[in-house]
């Protein structure tokens, strides 16, 4: 079959029978998934930008958020991204124990981030924030905040589950380095989205 495929190619990357992207299909599909998921958040953030520009009284972030706490959340997620990258590197080097150790550290980072998010949400809800009202400004603030951070938090939660499954599979020898790499791509994407949410929602 490979011989037949080789005979059909014209020698160029686009000649057929080979990936023009020089990656195998599962990594390519993961990248395409990441692009589509990123576009989801692009839509949310563009909509938030519109609502904010059109609003006469968008809440002052200094009155609503404890920026030191949010900075700590950012630190946790960035650190979990670094441990994930280390896990991928270890898996690629065939060092299974190190890969599992850093996958579990990444999971801990994800769980810590989720706990901090729950704490933040609890405080805001107790202060009167909801999907349709809040004590600081226009009503849309609450719905944008909970929807955007809620979608991101759901991605983090699912990422923690994926990390757990990948760690178990790596431990038992059923996952290849590629599996760890694909998990890593998803986790870094989750961190990437937070970079934009942190800047556009909490710092602007």
């Amino acid at each position: 079959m490979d011989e037949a495929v080789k005979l059909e190619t014209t020698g160029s990357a686009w000649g057929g029978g080979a990936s023009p992207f020089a990656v195998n299909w599962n990594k390519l599909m993961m990248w395409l998934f990441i692009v589509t998921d990123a576009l989801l958040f692009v839509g949310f953030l563009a909509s938030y930008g519109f609502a904010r520009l059109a609003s006469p009284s968008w809440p002052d972030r200094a009155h609503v958020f404890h920026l030191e706490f949010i900075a700590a959340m950012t630190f946790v997620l960035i650190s979990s991204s670094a441990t994930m990258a280390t896990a991928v590197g270890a898996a690629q080097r065939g060092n299974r124990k190190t890969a599992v150790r850093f996958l579990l550290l990444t999971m801990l980072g994800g769980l810590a981030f989720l706990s901090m998010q729950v704490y933040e949400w609890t405080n805001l809800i107790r202060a009167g924030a909801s999907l349709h009202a809040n004590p600081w400004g226009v009503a849309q603030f609450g719905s944008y905040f909970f929807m955007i951070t809620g979608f991101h938090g759901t991605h983090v939660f699912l990422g923690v589950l994926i990390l757990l499954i990948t760690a178990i599979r790596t431990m038992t020898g059923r996952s290849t380095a590629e599996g760890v790499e694909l998990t890593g791509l998803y986790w870094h994407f989750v961190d990437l989205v937070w970079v934009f949410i942190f800047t556009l929602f909490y710092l602007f």
Partner: protein
Amino acid sequence: MTEMIHEKKLVNYKLYWLIWLVLLVLTVIMLFVGQGLFSRMAVVSLLLVAMCAKAGLIGGYFMHLRFEKLVLILIVALAIVLTALALFVLIAPDGARILRLSQ
């Protein structure tokens, strides 16, 4: 098929932790910038630049996009960036216009 997939480049662990340090420094700078020492335009510009720098570092080094073929980098980056620009450029002026009309 296998020979068409380029060799994986093994990145040194130290580079990941150096990137981690740079990301932390950028985060601290971003927090500092918003403290009221600069004009609003300067704050927005600096935050946007820092945000894009962080995104580039995560995408390029943690996600290894820097080591992939250019066509894949362009597909990922252009799809997201162009869509974001198009959405914002088409929608944002209406938001500002609505605010002006309501005042």
